[in-house]
């Protein structure tokens, strides 16, 4: 009912505003709408429903990826996942949720509290370890984060754990020394473990265009393998992930849907695209 009948310029503008209001961003919106306009012309689509279907299809293919599952170690050593991202996006909470899933599926988990900076960060992760039966590895505030991650790996090896998850401090991507510190945490673990199986960037669904800058910087620093899109239970649509995948090839693997232990789900691109139109 955006259109009435036929697709006017106003209607196209309405579609642009829909995408912009979902934080898809100006550049991505213009490109996507232009592609849809061209396809509509080429395929002779003149009705509103047809155009919306083309747009959904365009968005859906922008988010396509053959395998969205989290990678695991293929040898006998523990799988290693590290969570990164700017401050307050939901890294620690997501790790708690992941630990719950893994423990429920019979896999043993070590959680390394490598956020040694923020007040009560290790305590917060520790409470999630308690809830899930995961083993916590921590040090005091101010300890070297890489040494905690390293200790996590050693504990995982010593206890023959299936999985090590490394929690890191939130950090703004324009802080050079903090991004270098993150790189060091990764290198120190990988010296022992080999390449990490997943380096997840946690993006808050409320984030605007800065999310793209964040993704670019974290990719450069630690070679991100996938995105966790959190707080999708809010009113924000998280459209920034469209640009993140289009420009950086980074897929969303998981979504956070609340503050509870079970509020984590695999990313469903169909549901995501549908929700842009709700």
């Amino acid at each position, binding site marked *: 009912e955006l259109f009435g009948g036929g697709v006017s310029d106003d209607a196209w503008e309405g579609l642009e505003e829909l995408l912009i*209001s979902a934080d898809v961003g100006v550049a991505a919106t213009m490109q996507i709408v232009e592609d849809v306009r061209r396809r509509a012309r080429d395929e002779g689509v003149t009705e509103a429903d047809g155009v919306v279907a083309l747009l959904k299809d365009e968005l859906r293919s922008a988010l396509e990826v053959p395998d969205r599952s989290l990678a695991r170690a293929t040898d006998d050593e523990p799988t290693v996942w590290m969570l990164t991202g700017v401050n307050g996006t939901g890294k620690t909470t997501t790790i708690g949720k992941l630990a719950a899933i893994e423990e429920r599926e019979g896999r043993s988990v070590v959680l390394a509290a490598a956020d040694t900076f923020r007040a009560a960060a290790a305590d917060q992760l520790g409470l999630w370890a308690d809830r899930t039966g995961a083993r916590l590895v921590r040090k005091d505030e101010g300890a070297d984060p890489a040494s905690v991650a390293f200790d996590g790996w050693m504990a995982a090896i010593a206890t023959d754990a299936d999985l090590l998850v490394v929690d890191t401090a939130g950090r703004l991507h324009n802080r050079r020394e903090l991004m270098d510190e993150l790189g060091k945490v990764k290198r120190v673990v990988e010296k022992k473990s080999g390449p990490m199986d997943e380096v997840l960037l946690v993006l808050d669904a409320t984030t605007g*265009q800065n999310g793209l*800058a964040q993704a670019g910087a974290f990719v450069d620093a630690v070679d991100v393998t996938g995105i966790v899109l959190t707080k999708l239970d809010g009113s924000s649509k998280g459209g920034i992930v469209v640009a993140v995948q289009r420009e950086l090839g980074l897929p969303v693997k998981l979504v956070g849907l609340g*503050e509870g232990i079970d509020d984590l789900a695999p990313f469903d691109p169909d549901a995501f695209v549908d929700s842009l139109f709700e």
Partner: protein
Amino acid sequence: ALAQRLDDALSRVRGRGRLDDETVDATLSEIRLALLEADVNFKVVRGFVSRLREVLVGEEVSKALNPSQQVVKAVHAELVRALGGESVTPDLSGNPAVIMLAGLQGSGKTTAAGKLAKQLKKKGRTPMLVACDLQRPAAVQQLRINAEKVGVHVYAPVESGDPVAVARDSLAKARDTGCDVVIVDTAGRLHIDTELMGQARDIRAAVDPTATLFVIDAMIGQEAVNVSKAFLDDVGFDGVILTKLDGDARGGAALSVREVTDRPIVYASVGEKMEDFEAFHPDRMADRILG
């Protein structure tokens, strides 16, 4: 930067006469894109651009500035005005004065509580931090550590239960310990969570704050409008704290929040340490939004 983007639109303008309609339209179109890229909400942009049209139409072309610089100057001035013009000093008089913090999850409330306490202590007040987030794991401990870091009292009697009761009891506690300003930290909550918005309203009613401050992350996108409107309507607030301004987000949310709630942004949080806290400056924010 914006001036360079406007050069094309203004390429035929020479150093006299007035800006014609066609030139104004091309210029406004470019400004609209710049504001959207800065995360200003698209409806707020619409309103702002139509006000700009009135400013620019018939604007006499300056002989002193090149046309792009002149337009940027006019846009900047309008943006500064929209952001409140100048810094404000909140009235936090009262004994005890009560400040309540509210906002979305992860926006920076617990950290801001410590910063506010540090700043007030520096000004000779005796603050007390009150732990009313009884939900997030280790939130109370986080506030306790912040209190210790800045050397102020903390009232954190429980780690679960009813935050309204804790808030209410904190006032007597403040009087007993000689604290003259109470800062109430609350749990992050979604503006669409009716139950938790009701709880925030109840906390506010229980302590009747001198100032309720809405804490919002500078990197927030288009939903800044819906979020801030909901917090204004369902909880009520007097001012805003904009956080994580040490990042490189353009921060268009600042304009969106101000336009839609007509509440001043009072403080800017500019880092993770307890001293990274300052008055909000509309002119600096305008520079940042315009890129």
